[in-house]
């Protein structure tokens, strides 16, 4: 079996974490969430790592929640859903608070939780072919645990639009609203990522770490209470009639009741 997450660390201290489930568009399930969380925690501890690039193999960056996982979730109790949402909340928190600078390499579509991963990285560079959507409401769900990071990146004004409309938007719009810092032709993506990492490696490792902590403290990164609250909100929705209808209609490839003419 191939690994769902690949890790490479080079001699300069650049770690590259690659989502490696291209057949399912790097959708995440409980196993991938656990694997990624462990990987980021371990990198945070490693003295030889100075910058972390988050990349993905295949056509998409990440399609968000995995179908099989959603199928299992459909039968979860609210308590099981809360524990489950707590795992995703923890992953995004570990990425956001990783004591090394992080760079997202967004080569394709980032949907739902995939947008959360991008928003939680310090720097995000997207291919012009990338696209984005906070698609949760179309399934009767809410972008709960990722919302603090999404709102932190794009601000409440743009969040109110894209969290409510679930519209798909392109890389240029992602740059305009601040979700990504730059967009580049696909062929230049690696060289631009190399340039960003090279810049990060010019900074004093301690100074870079402290600058990140400063930006988080002054900029108001979400506290534990917020993280718990967002997990509770999504758990409640998943167990609600609308949430169940949304997920089952999606799995059954039919329209949810509220979309019927």
């Amino acid at each position, binding site marked *: 079996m191939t690994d769902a997450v690949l890790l490479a660390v080079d001699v300069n201290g650049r770690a590259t974490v690659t989502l490696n489930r291209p057949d399912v568009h790097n959708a995440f399930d409980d196993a991938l969430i656990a694997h990624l969380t462990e990987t980021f925690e371990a990198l945070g501890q490693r003295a030889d790592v100075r910058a972390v690039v988050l990349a993905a193999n295949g056509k998409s960056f990440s399609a968000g929640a995995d179908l099989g996982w959603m199928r299992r979730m459909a039968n979860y109790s609210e308590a099981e859903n809360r524990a489950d949402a707590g795992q995703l909340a923890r992953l995004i928190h570990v990425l956001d608070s990783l004591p090394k600078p992080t760079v997202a390499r967004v080569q394709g579509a980032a949907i739902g939780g995939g947008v959360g991963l991008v928003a939680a990285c310090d720097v995000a560079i997207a291919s012009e072919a990338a696209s984005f959507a906070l698609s*949760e*409401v*179309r*399934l*009767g*769900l*809410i*972008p*709960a645990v990722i*919302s*603090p990071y999404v*709102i932190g990146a794009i*601000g*409440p*004004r*743009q*969040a*109110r*639009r894209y*969290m*409510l*409309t*679930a*519209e798909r938007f392109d890389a240029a719009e992602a740059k305009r609203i601040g979700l990504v810092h730059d967009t580049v032709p696909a062929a230049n993506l690696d060289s631009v990522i190399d340039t960003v990492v090279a810049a990060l490696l010019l900074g004093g490792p301690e100074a870079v770490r402290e600058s990140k902590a400063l930006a988080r403290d002054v900029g108001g990164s*979400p506290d534990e209470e*917020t993280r718990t*609250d*967002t997990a509770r*909100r999504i758990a409640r*929705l998943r167990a*609600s009639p*609308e*949430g169940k*209808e*949304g997920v089952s209609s999606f799995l059954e490839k039919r329209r*949810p009741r*509220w*979309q019927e003419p």
Partner: protein
Amino acid sequence: MSEAIVLHTVDTRGVATVTLNRPELHNAYNGDLIDGIAAAFGALRDDPAVRAVILRANGKHFSAGADLGWLRQAADFTPEQNLDFSLRTTGAMRALMEFPAPTVALVHGACFGGGTGLVAACDIAIAGTDSTFALTEVRVGVNPAPIMRPMNAAIGPRQARRYALTGERFDAAEARRIGLVHETAPREALEAALSRIVDALLLGGPQALRETKALAFAVGGLSTDDTTVRAMATVAAKRRASAEAREGLGAFLAKRPPAWAPKGNG
């Protein structure tokens, strides 16, 4: 009986439309308009069938700011009447800002003063490319206290500090750049732009939309409380009753420059 100053309807899809309907006064902001807005959103709030609300205006302009003749009269209110009026304004603004379902503003023509606050309070805003915006309050010696919270939330304190202080007019492109509006479209394409947003909203689960809006408010720190609202109303009322505001409003109505206007080119 004359037509209502603020109209509201709900269609079979659950899309409500609230229309400012005082075109002869360019939907200028006064006590009647404020009460009409509060009443419309109050009525819609209790209707569980409402899945989205559009806020738009009849006539040439979305809202040409405050009705200054009426504002000048307000300067002679008793302090109690004055505060009561400010509380009605902040209350209407809050009813719109915290409306539980998604709200979409459709702006055309001029959108000044309190009108910009209405736009900022909506979740999503679409403007005609020919629309113009300004926070004009300081030019007549009053302040935009009742709209500052939604304004800060929409465009951030950096831009709010500029436009609330300078009273400069800005165009639709600038409004989009700073985040006051999300999309701009030529007048003939406005309805299509609005439909795209409304159609997208109708694909979302109705409960999920309400919960997502509540989430954005909780996480984004957008909620307010009675103490803050009252403080804003008090600031606005005190300012309106000040000598400077009387001078500013009086000068505007007499079509003369206010006492603080520069005397020459320096």
